[in-house]
């Protein structure tokens, strides 16, 4: 920022500092977006165009890789599986985690802090250490390769995540809101559902979206707990990446990678408008 910016703020758009910031923004965007761009680009290349050196930006695009791997990697079923698992674990976690977060934020309970901390600490356990015991338990219960298994497994890390985020939202709300609702005729539950939840909706929604994205891209549990029927998209990518008999199959990797990312981007764009509107409406000033 230039030192005299405040004095001429009415035409701040023209100051050098402002231009520099725009340039920096463009640069950062390029750094983050280029790999995605390259992935999408590569997915439409033929095998010969992928390895040209220097890399080419102009080529004859083909859908061949997509066609082949939609079938070979069973993509449609995996996408359906991933949607079921992401939505299922996201919704389950948001319901349980929001209510747990509310309890931690508001209910005067001996040891509430400790309970919260222990639940948070459980996130410190490396997932790999949990995956194998989970697999053994699932096998004993006859639950391997089922959607519900992944939904429950993902909830083990999503619930603490939701709980802590929502607890923060609730702590930021004045407790007089519920008290007022309780005097106005609500029970504690009524106050939560009629007053607190509607106010927290933007936070709730963004937490839900992040949870679903975390579930969407989860690999380790999916790898261990499923094999065919309930297998998800990241498992397919891992399979292609691990299949190095003929050297890395970049065409297939980028094609399936694109298929994985595109729904997330579309989803994020769809809810983004809604999210921003929600944030503006729900501002809790006053």
């Amino acid at each position, binding site marked *: 920022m230039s030192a005299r910016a405040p004095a001429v703020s009415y035409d701040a758009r023209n100051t050098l500092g402002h231009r520099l910031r725009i340039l920096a923004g463009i640069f950062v965007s390029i750094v983050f977006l280029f790999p995605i761009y390259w992935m999408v680009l590569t997915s439409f290349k033929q095998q010969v165009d992928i390895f040209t050196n220097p890399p080419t930006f102009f080529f004859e695009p083909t859908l061949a890789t997509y066609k082949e791997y939609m079938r070979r990697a069973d993509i449609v079923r995996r996408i359906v599986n991933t949607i079921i698992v992401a939505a299922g674990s996201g919704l389950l976690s948001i319901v349980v985690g929001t209510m747990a977060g509310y309890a931690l934020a508001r209910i005067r309970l001996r040891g509430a802090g400790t309970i919260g901390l222990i639940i948070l600490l459980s996130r410190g356990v490396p997932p790999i250490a949990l995956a194998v015991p989970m697999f053994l338990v699932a096998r004993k219960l006859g639950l391997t390769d089922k959607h519900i298994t992944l939904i429950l497994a993902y909830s083990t890390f999503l619930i603490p995540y939701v709980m802590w985020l929502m607890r923060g939202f609730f702590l930021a709300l*004045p407790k*007089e*809101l519920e*008290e*007022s*609702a*309780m*005097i*106005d*005729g*609500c*029970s504690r539950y*009524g106050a939560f559902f009629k*007053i607190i939840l*509607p*106010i927290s909706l933007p936070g709730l929604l963004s937490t839900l979206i992040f949870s679903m994205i975390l579930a969407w891209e989860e690999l380790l549990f999916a790898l261990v707990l499923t094999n065919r029927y309930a297998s998800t998209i990241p498992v397919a990518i891992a399979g292609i990446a691990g299949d190095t008999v003929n050297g890395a199959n970049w065409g297939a990797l980028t094609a399936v990678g694109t298929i994985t990312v595109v729904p997330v981007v579309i989803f994020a764009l769809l809810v983004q408008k809604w999210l921003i509107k929600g944030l503006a*409406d*729900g*501002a*809790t*000033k*006053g």
Partner: protein
Amino acid sequence: MGTVQIREVRKSYGAVQVLHGISIDIEDGEFVALVGPSGCGKSTLLRMIAGLESISGGDIAIGNRVVNNVAPKDRDIAMVFQNYALYPHKNVRDNMGFALQQRRVPKPEIAKRVNEAARILGLEHLLDRKPRQLSGGQRQRVAMGRAIVRDPNVFLFDEPLSNLDAKLRVQMRSEIKELHQRLKTTTIYVTHDQIEAMTLADRVVVMNGGVVEQEGPPLELYDRPASLFVAAFIGSPPMNFLQGQIIEGNGLRLEDNTVLGLPAADPKQRRQVTIGVRPEHFVIAETGWPATVSIVEPTGSETQITARLAGQLIRILVRGRTSAMPGDEIRLAVTPGDIHFFDAAPIPELASAEDA
């Protein structure tokens, strides 16, 4: 029936006791102010009446029904909070109608009562706004409107005016008083501002450290404070205090051996006393206690003089104007009824009594 009986009520948070047996009897239609310094337990007591805090000991009865284990929603009370606690996602109309909605009052009836309350409070043009589109004063009115549409047994106010600027506070104070005279609903009003308490209430309860120091009509507290604390808390500018020893012939020997002649004798015949005289009860006269003027502050209608009496600063309030100048030697007379006697004790420090 809007009577409220508070009997030997105690409150502890863990091992810390914050209310030590409070008893107050409030009649139907009465306006009672709970006043006291910060941390004395006013809000805690009010929240116990509302049912927002559990009762550790004693009973609270509203309309002759003990409500110790009754949920807030079933106590038929309405409360106005210091931060107003308006529902941010509802517009003014729905904020005010929410309680009636919860009680399944028919829609036309809700609309009628909301409109009536809005008319009384001058909120008609704001009914469709969200709370964040209102000024502080307007939010305060909406919070009051939300309370009055309920037509409850008891109104509870917890420092409802403390977030407003001084001018608006005085205006809302009159409106609250007018509202009470119109609705005649039992009201319990918490404030740390003694002027607010004195001007609004039929009866003032002065609390200190979790006990009731004194209760009574405002002027009784002013005229006959039962303790040094109440004497120092009620009245603005605060009462002047002098400590000393009673000697023969109605004299008071101060620490520096100055002897002041007292116009009246201590009814309790103590040897060591603290005497109190309100600034407005000093009269500049031919004879009396000798003092030296140090500051003269005229406001037009009255003049406040700070003077030095036997090494101590005292405050004198005279009506109208005065010819006294800094450095003048003056004599101060006090009529017998205007001198108060207390046990000799350190003068309570009350910053809050003056921030009105």
